[in-house]
């Protein structure tokens, strides 16, 4: 079954999304953007950015804001108002509905919207690599039956089975994940490029009911841009006496700069508009350099923001809901990124608005989620859990060695080979831990078991394969297998992912708090392990080499090893003191070993000095593996 895509068919911009791997994702357009302008040139069949770029040249054939005409009568207020601002010709079609006339042809708003949907379909197909036949399309909550019907027809013309028409605020609420369990009242505040909508939703048992909706169909981000442009032009005129509004080229540069400034002032409190050589006066170039503060911007657009309050009041009154009964306020539309807008919303509703989802993408994402629900994608895939904390085992020196890292999506499994810590060790204990701290004892014990019957062998030789396997229900299976004998032991731990949120938070906080201490402890253990390995290896070499070392040298080395051993055992020992003794011993061993090779080389060059070298190498590499992971006994 093919995927159902979600389409936010907007007045100024449209966006596409799809469910993938259990979550909704925006599909980038062929141009590499997350949204595209809802602009169509039907004669040359141009849609989106390309249509927008030729708009000035071909204004009477370029259609924008066609959504305003969907399912409208030509004689209706909305169609007449659109006619006033549209450079293309709007006329009455059969049965009096509004149509567009251009190039001697008539186009219904459905046909034009279909072009936008066709682009959405094509871009989705390119992204997914398969054909797309089904879609969920969003419409404003106030759309009546004929408007919804028109939208559905547009989908059919574009070759899409419209599985459902979803209200934009409902889609946004879905994208914000508000469908899970709670029963509450949700306000959706949507300030987009060209329209403002506010909706009150009642959410109960996963069903959304639109209680009321209000707005201003001619208020949006473009109006904000105009205010900034006006300000820049008037300031420049005051300073230089030149009216940039008369210069189309300069005006275009100011328009770009104004939009950039508006965006920058959402994160910075001050920005600089720099447009050198903007114009000339008496043959001398004039430069536009101007600082705009966030406070100034807020002052300029304050009346626009205040204009959104009245519809909010009306929506609340229509829904017969008190502000105190509102459970959640969510923000949709690019303009809601502006801190002042967020502040005004917060002050009016008395509640911090939720802004966790990208406001330009929320509606399309919600439509995709609705598509996922219809195709059955969502129900099962969303249940995939992640491990809240790291899972691992205790290794030499009481260190926690992680196997499955925190936030791994389950089901997941991982194996790692460990070895023994001492010679002829007959068994290993697998101590299973959960937590973020480097020392075993600071983490939570989930269980432990013993794998015995390991054949006698020097330390580091046996290969014990430890496997962690966690299934989708959070059940953890840990097994340990001796690769030599094939002997295996295992344990099953239920609810390895099942921790309360508080528990996870506490453990994470502790890990942060003790990070420095833990690091020191771990360093000491590592150093001790390193020293331990040197002691064992050197003693072995001394024993194996027989009388090759003279007794004085042997004694000297043995003494330094004993001192090192004592140092490790001291309870008050530190990384530095172990390191000092370790260095002395290492140097001594190296010195004598060198002398030994030299002597051997001089005595008899044929006496395989290479074999001896090989041994020394081996000892070195052993040190490394021992440091990393050996199961404690």
């Amino acid at each position: 079954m093919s995927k159902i895509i979600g389409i936010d068919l907007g007045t100024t911009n449209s966006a596409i999304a799809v469910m993938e791997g259990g979550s909704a994702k925006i599909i980038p357009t062929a141009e590499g953007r997350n949204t595209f302008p809802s602009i169509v040139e039907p004669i040359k069949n141009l849609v989106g950015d390309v249509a927008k770029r030729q708009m000035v040249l071909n204004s009477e054939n370029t259609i924008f804001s066609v959504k305003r005409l969907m399912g409208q009568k030509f004689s209706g207020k909305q169609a007449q108002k659109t006619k006033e601002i549209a450079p293309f010709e709007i006329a009455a079609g059969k049965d009096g509905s509004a149509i567009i006339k251009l190039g001697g042809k008539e186009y219904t708003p459905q046909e034009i919207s279909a072009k936008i949907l066709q682009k959405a379909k094509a871009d989705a197909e390119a992204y997914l690599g398969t054909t797309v036949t089904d879609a969920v399309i969003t419409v404003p909550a106030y759309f009546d039956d004929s408007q919804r019907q028109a939208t559905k027809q547009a989908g059919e013309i574009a070759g899409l089975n419209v599985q459902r028409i979803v209200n934009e605020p409902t889609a946004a609420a879905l994208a914000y994940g508000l469908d899970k369990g709670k029963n509450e009242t949700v306000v959706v505040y949507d300030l987009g490029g060209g329209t403002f909508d506010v909706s009150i939703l009642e959410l109960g048992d996963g069903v959304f009911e639109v209680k009321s909706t209000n707005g201003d169909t001619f208020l949006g981000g473009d109006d904000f841009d105009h205010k900034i442009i006006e300000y820049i032009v008037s300031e420049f005129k005051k300073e230089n006496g030149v009216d940039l509004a008369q210069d189309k080229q300069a005006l275009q540069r100011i328009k770009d700069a104004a939009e950039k400034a508006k965006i920058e002032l959402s994160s910075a409190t001050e920005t600089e508009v720099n447009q050198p050589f903007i114009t000339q006066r008496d043959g001398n170039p004039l430069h536009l350099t101007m600082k705009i503060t966030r406070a100034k911007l807020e002052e300029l657009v304050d009346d626009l923001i205040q204009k959104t309050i009245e519809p909010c009041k009306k929506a609340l009154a229509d829904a017969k809901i008190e502000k105190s009964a509102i459970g959640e306020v969510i923000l949709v539309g690019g303009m809601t990124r502006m801190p002042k807008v967020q502040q005004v919303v917060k002050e009016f509703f008395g509640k911090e608005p939720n802004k966790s989802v990208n406001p330009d993408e929320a509606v399309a994402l919600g439509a995709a989620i609705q598509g996922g629900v219809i195709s059955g994608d969502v129900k099962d895939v969303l249940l995939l859990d992640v491990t809240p904390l790291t899972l691992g085992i205790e290794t030499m020196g009481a260190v926690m060695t992680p196997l499955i890292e925190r936030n791994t999506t389950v089901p997941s499994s991982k194996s790692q080979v460990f070895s023994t810590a001492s010679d002829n060790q007959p068994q290993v204990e697998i101590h299973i831990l959960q937590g973020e701290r480097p020392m075993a004892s600071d983490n939570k014990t989930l269980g432990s078991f013993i794998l015995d019957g390991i054949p006698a062998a020097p330390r580091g030789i046996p290969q014990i394969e430890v496997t962690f396997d966690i299934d989708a229900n959070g059940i953890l299976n840990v097994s340990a297998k001796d690769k030599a004998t094939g002997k295996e032991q295992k344990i099953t731990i239920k609810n390895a992912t099942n921790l309360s949120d508080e528990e996870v938070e506490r453990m994470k906080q502790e890990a942060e708090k003790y990070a420095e201490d833990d690091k020191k402890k771990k360093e000491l253990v590592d150093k001790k392990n390193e020293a331990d390995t040197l002691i064992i290896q050197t003693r072995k070499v001394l024993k194996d080499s027989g009388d090759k070392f003279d007794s004085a040298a042997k004694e000297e080395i043995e003494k330094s090893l004993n001192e090192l051993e004592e140092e490790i055992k001291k309870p008050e020992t530190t990384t530095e003191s172990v390191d000092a003794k370790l260095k002395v011993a290492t140097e001594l061993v190296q010195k004598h070993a060198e002398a030994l090779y030299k002597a051997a080389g001089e005595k008899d060059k044929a006496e395989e000095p290479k074999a001896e070298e090989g041994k020394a190498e081996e000892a070195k590499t052993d040190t490394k593996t021992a440091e990393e992971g050996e199961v404690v006994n």
Partner: protein
Amino acid sequence: MVKKTQPSKTEIEKILARAEEHETNYKRVLADYQNQERRFKEMQGQFVKYANATLLEKILLNIDSLEMAQSHIKDAGLDIVIKQFIETLKTEGLQLIESDGKLFDPKTMDCIEVVSGEKDKVIETLTKGYLLNEKVLRPAKVKVGNGVIARSESDAAISQSN
């Protein structure tokens, strides 16, 4: 005799339906994964090619300013500096969109103003456009002719050919 308990027909149907549902879900997830892998491979190539896009877009604004300064002060040295600058960016995959005198193409150009001149031809480039590894990084901002080749400017502004 031990009585055999047979699951009822509806129970079997239920179980079969569940099995089928699980298989579909499994296939779906596997397909998602494989698609994701394919896309990831594609994206790795894209990522290297277009990683610089945002930075280049910002630098282009500075080059625009330099060029504007140059058109005013006409300094031979500055000319070399600008050329050097562009040459460096060319090695990173940047390419100028030829626009002056060309036929207007909305794929690579953005029409800012319609002026008198040959129809649909670019009369003047206001800001140069650039491609980055064959993709449009920034369309050229241009003035396009309306088909009226008039002696006087005011005539041209009023009449619109169609």
